[in-house]
């Protein structure tokens, strides 16, 4: 149904639907790579004094697992769905700058390949954890050229994301079809707008930090090897990016959950305007909380207290978002399909991940949590739970739109059950491992961590295969040659009204009256266009 498969078309494409699918396929590839790294780590930690991986290999795998999962899997998977869906939701023909979009994709792909390639270099890749803390990341303590390449790959990824954010913000601001006013903008598009706005602010400081790091490593500057710059300078630049990045990953997930809830509860989002306001509040506040990652660095306590307050402040609108989603179900007509189940699971994990995060917002409590498996549990609940579940829900939900195929519902529900149970068996024990340091490659039996770690590994061996089967379900449905109807969910959002699936171009004179869900604002007055429309950036 994609016509005759032609490699040239896929290599040269600038069409948002094709680029979106390329993004999704690539992100799934990196998900499998990073997921297998995770399985290796769990295998190594299953029993005390294990020698399955040596400490250096383990350190590299920890680093790659973190970097790949956060940056090369979760962020682009959301961007891939956005690529396909956002132009349809706003009635645009394509993104504002199609060739820039293709460039984003290819730089993303090559940056990921460079990063994964570092393990094959003599001397190996970065062995620093995904935070690449200075001065462990300097040439003195990581002399291998793989660490330089990893930093450069990360910088290339930052460039790719910046290009995407330029593209998406411009598209959403300038290419909304007649009638898609701001009040009617679909929630998923709102979430992508916020995501991209955050990315615009978060990634440049990371790129600057990486520039300093690479000049340190290649040209011999001394920003991170001297004590005047050093650890704290890196942490400032890194976490100014690092904390908004968490929200960059979570926002598309919230948008997907909102869309799925609205479709399968057959109900408008609870208090959409308040929801959007809370969204904007989280976006703004998330740029001012990063120093809660630095509670134990010994910086001035009053400064930390300020960031403790902002962190607590951000939890209020965020909690509002979750409540808004839950209240959307109230008095709806709920149909428990697989995407719905994944979204409900995501609400569970985001609540648990959120409240554990609030506990960490108190510096005093954080003294015990910092650097321990509690933290690992917390952010896996937010990322591996909420974001991955919601993105899978998004894939399932938009699969008929993207491929004209419907996955097997029963199979999907079974794999959901296994992945949810496996997930909790995998990550819940981490909340009891408050004294186990992160990123240790092995531990002794006398520590008493063995049984919880073994449970966790059992969970990993349920969770990992369940996610693979979840993806297999989609691939199997794609191979089966029976087309489903173009709007099997009877969804009311813009992207479903065109009745065009797959790669078929959408109609241009979008009729928004069919999209019941977005009709909440007042009708706008038509205006004549005066904007010269010259195609690409230059």
């Amino acid at each position, binding site marked *: 149904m994609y016509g005759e498969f032609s490699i040239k078309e896929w290599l*040269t494409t600038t069409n948002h639907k094709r680029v979106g699918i390329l993004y999704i396929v690539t992100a799934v590839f990196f998900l499998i790579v990073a997921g297998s790294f995770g399985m290796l780590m769990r295998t190594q930690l299953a029993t005390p004094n294990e020698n399955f991986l040596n400490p250096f290999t383990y350190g590299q795998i920890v680093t790659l697992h973190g970097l790949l999962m956060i940056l090369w899997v979760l962020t682009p998977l959301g961007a891939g769905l956005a690529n396909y869906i956002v132009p349809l939701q706003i009635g645009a023909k394509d993104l504002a700058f199609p060739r820039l979009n293709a460039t984003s994709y290819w730089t993303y792909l090559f940056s990921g390949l460079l990063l994964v390639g570092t393990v094959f270099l003599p001397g190996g890749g970065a062995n620093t954890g995904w935070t690449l803390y200075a001065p462990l990341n300097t040439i003195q303590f990581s002399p291998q050229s793989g660490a330089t390449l990893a930093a450069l790959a990360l910088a290339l990824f930052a460039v790719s994301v910046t290009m995407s954010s330029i593209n998406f913000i411009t598209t959403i601001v*300038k290419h909304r079809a007649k009638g898609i006013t701001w009040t009617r903008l679909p929630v998923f598009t709102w979430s992508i707008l916020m995501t991209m706005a955050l990315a615009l602010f978060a990634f440049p400081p990371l790129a600057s930090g990486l520039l300093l790091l690479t000049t340190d490593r290649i040209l011999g500057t001394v920003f991170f090897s001297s004590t005047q710059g050093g650890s704290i300078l890196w942490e400032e630049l890194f976490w100014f990016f690092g904390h908004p990045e968490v929200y960059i990953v979570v926002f598309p997930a919230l948008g997907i959950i909102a869309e799925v809830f609205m479709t399968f509860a057959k109900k408008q989002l609870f208090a959409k305007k308040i929801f959007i306001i809370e969204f904007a509040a989280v976006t703004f506040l998330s740029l001012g909380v990063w120093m809660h990652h630095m509670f134990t660095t010994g910086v001035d306590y009053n400064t930390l207290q300020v960031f403790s307050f902002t962190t607590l402040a951000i939890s209020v609108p965020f909690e509002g978002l979750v409540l808004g989603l839950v209240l959307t179900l109230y008095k709806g007509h709920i149909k428990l399909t697989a995407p719905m189940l994944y979204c409900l699971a995501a609400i569970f994990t985001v609540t648990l991940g959120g409240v554990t995060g609030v506990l960490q917002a108190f510096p005093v409590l954080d003294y015990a949590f910092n650097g321990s498996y509690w933290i690992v549990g917390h952010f896996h609940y937010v990322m591996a739970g909420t974001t991955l579940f919601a993105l899978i829900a998004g894939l399932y939900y938009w699969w008929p739109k993207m491929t004209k195929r419907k996955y097997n519902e029963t199979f999907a529900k079974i794999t959901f059950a296994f992945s949810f149970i496996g997930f909790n068996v995998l990550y819940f024990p981490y909340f009891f491992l408050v004294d186990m340091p992160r990123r240790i490659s092995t531990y002794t039996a006398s520590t008493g961590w063995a049984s919880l770690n073994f449970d966790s590994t059992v969970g990993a061996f349920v969770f990992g295969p369940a996610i693979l089967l979840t993806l297999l379900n989609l691939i199997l449905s794609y191979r089966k040659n029976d087309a489903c109807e173009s709007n099997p969910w009877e969804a009311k959002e813009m992207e479903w009204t065109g009745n065009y699936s797959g790669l078929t171009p959408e109609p241009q004179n979008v009729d928004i009256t069919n999209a019941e869900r977005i009709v909440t604002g007042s009708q706008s007055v038509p205006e004549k266009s005066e904007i010269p429309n010259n195609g690409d950036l230059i």
Partner: protein
Amino acid sequence: MKEDVQTEENKSSFVPLIIAAGVAVLLLGLAIYIPLIVAGLVIITAALFKLFKDGASEKYAERKQIEEEKYPLESVSKEKLGLWIFLASEILIFGSLITAYLYVRISSGSWPVATQTHNVILGMTNTIILLTSSLTMILGLYSIRLGNVKGLKICLGSTFALGLAFLGIKLGIEWPALISSGFTINSGLPASSYFVLTGLHAVHVAVGLVAVGYLMFRASMGGFTSSKHVAVENIGLYWHFVDIVWMFLFPLFYLI
């Protein structure tokens, strides 16, 4: 099914793939094997050449007008908006680098006196050169708005020459003098921060020169008219931004 493919055929291009591959080769060269840098630069140049050719022939120009919602940026073209978003990210890049510079400078306690390390006269000359290039750039836009293509060509030519002069003074006179006096990039934080910040700025000037070169090429093909000159305006915005960055780097390194 076949018609899907045809409608998008006119937009498809190998350029994005080739640029990304070229950058990847360049980065491999930086990290592992220096000669690959040259290969990367060759690939990128080839791709850019194709991009400029397409741009000059307006292969991808879109003419169809679709009615769209405009609030809140009614009078701003999407190209200009995209460029301003890009400039915002550039502000954040240079801003965080300046933050890093101030950080290491303040936490160092002692710092060499600026006027003893750097040549203020050369720095001031360079500042005035950049300011003048900004003037010629805006006069170019002014000319083409009135339909004066010859004026545009003269202005672009002067901008290009002034940009080259800036780089010539910086890389040809200042840096060799600094390096021969022992102020090398690996000689400590003052030199590290000076060379990284002004070096990145010089890279931006060089990119600007390539872009101005493209404008000159396109202007010589008669690619701009009084109603069609988005590229002149956008590249001008970028050029002035590079100018603004220097307005801060000059006092930070040469005066304070």
